[in-house]
């Protein structure tokens, strides 16, 4: 006599996991979208003019500290400008630069990585040498060279950020493509007469999209930090344009007696970079067709 186990009801695991994945994306995406929306809507909000100076109201602490003023919720800087208004207005430019700088690096970097990993040979040798040369150049030196040549402008800033970013994409996507092209399905596609450019764009690209997404989110954080560093050094945005990095630079001199001037833009950078990274991680697990193997 054999023992027979009663059949168990099949566990319906997949929909739940899928929903939880979407939940995490929303949990990080919604706050990020809210921050973005508030920054975009800054001109519509009842805020003081971010460029209006008032030396009599300089270095006011945040509203909840003694000496604070309800009109300046997060205090004022050394020229009496409202920190909250400047953060929101500065966020617009920071987001714009981050997205433009990220795209300008991600698109060429990903394509070059795909092409060099897929075709190998001479293309690969050339691209790989450029990647190595790029990675060997110090970022700040590169930035100074480009901005010295082109002058300080938004487009020069985006160019610097693109030059800074593309090599990372190219290198990682090349490695991923190299392993992907050896998978059996690629052989099957070649055998079925699918043209190489189509294999590249319709099969390789979707399969590296998860990696690109993770890189993009990591890179957006880095790009925001790089923009901040450049503005801090005076190579970034030009006053009266405002970015968080430039605000951080302005607050540096008052750090000992007026911490809020630097702390709140710093907090904004930290929050946004953290949210972007968490969102990227959540999106990767959400979009992955299977979280097992490969």
């Amino acid at each position, binding site marked *: 006599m054999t023992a027979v186990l009663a059949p168990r009801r099949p566990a319906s695991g997949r929909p739940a996991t899928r929903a939880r994945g979407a939940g995490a994306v929303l949990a990080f995406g919604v706050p990020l979208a809210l921050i973005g929306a508030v920054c975009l809507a800054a001109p519509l909000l009842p805020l003081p003019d971010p460029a209006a100076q008032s030396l009599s109201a300089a270095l006011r602490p945040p509203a909840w500290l003694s000496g604070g003023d309800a009109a300046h919720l997060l205090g004022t800087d050394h020229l009496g400008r409202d920190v909250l208004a400047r953060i929101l207005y500065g966020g617009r430019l920071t987001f714009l630069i981050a997205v433009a700088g990220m795209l300008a690096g991600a698109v060429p970097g990903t394509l070059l990585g795909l092409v060099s990993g897929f075709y190998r040979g001479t293309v690969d040798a050339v691209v790989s040498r450029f990647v190595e040369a790029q990675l060997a150049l110090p970022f700040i030196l590169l930035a100074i060279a480009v901005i010295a040549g082109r002058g300080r402008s938004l487009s020069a800033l985006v160019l610097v950020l693109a030059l800074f970013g593309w090599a990372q994409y190219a290198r990682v996507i090349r490695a991923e493509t190299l392993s992907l092209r050896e998978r059996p399905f690629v052989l*099957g596609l070649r055998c079925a*007469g699918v043209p190489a450019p189509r294999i590249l764009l319709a*099969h390789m690209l979707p399969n590296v999209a998860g990696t690109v997404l993770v890189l993009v989110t990591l890179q957006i954080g880095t790009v925001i930090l790089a923009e901040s560093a450049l503005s801090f050094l005076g190579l970034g945005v030009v006053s009266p344009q405002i970015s968080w990095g430039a605000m951080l630079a302005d607050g540096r001199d008052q750090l000992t007696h007026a911490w809020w001037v630097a702390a709140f833009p710093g907090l904004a950078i930290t929050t946004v970079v953290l949210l972007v990274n968490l969102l990227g991680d959540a999106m990767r697990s959400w979009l992955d067709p299977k979280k097992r193997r490969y």
Partner: protein
Amino acid sequence: MTRERRILDVDDLTVVHQAGGRWGNRRGDTVAAVDGVSLTVDAGEIIGVVGESGSGKTSLAMAVAGLGRISGGTVTVSGVQVSGRLSRAERTRVQVILQDPHGSLDPRQTVRRGLRELRRIHPERTGWTTDEELLAKVGLNADLLDRLPHQVSGGQAQRVAIARALLLRPALLLADEPTSALDVSVQAQILRLLLGLRRSEDLAILFISHDLAVVRAVCDRVHVMLRGRVVEHGPTAEVFERPAHEYTRRLLAAIPGRRPLDPADPAGRPVQVTTASVPGGEP
């Protein structure tokens, strides 16, 4: 056999690989993975190629599929010589089925989208059937069409791979270890499917495997490869019953179940074959 039924003609094929990378190989060492192999496959025939790892089976397969190097000799498929300059339609006359059933499908493409892609690239060759009919031919239900590869079993994935190959109406099906990654009951189903297709589609199949039991079950004729050469070939029954070459005898003796496992050798060590002079290693 009449001339028209000859699908594949491999004549004195040699495939030479460079040993080592482009920079690490200053001496120009080479390995002959396939060394003067000749074989033919006619329509409706299943021809087996057996041999251990490194015997040159896969190099032979890649050359036949038009995807590998051909260093010497000729490969002719339906009267057209395989070379680097094949038109797209000519290349698709050989379709492959590979060992890893899940790896044979793009993980991000549903079955339906994959078939639609093939139809768009080869509209003139794929109009003969609908997706549903095609899946029925390989014993699959049409509700599989909207699944991703990881949502089907290994056996189903292999059937999808076979369906994709059939869609292009190939003259030759190249099956490279098609059942090695499947469990035994699924293996039998896939083999039965291939046998059925051979009959219904009059398909020529080149069946490459290291699994002698499987080869014995499906192949009409069998070629035994060792170090890039065919050391013995003939009708399957003959080769299995009266192996002429020493290597074949040793291989056959290694089939589990043919004789009781040696109790003195519980590890079931693989058959000892002198391969000391074999150049290179794994392909």
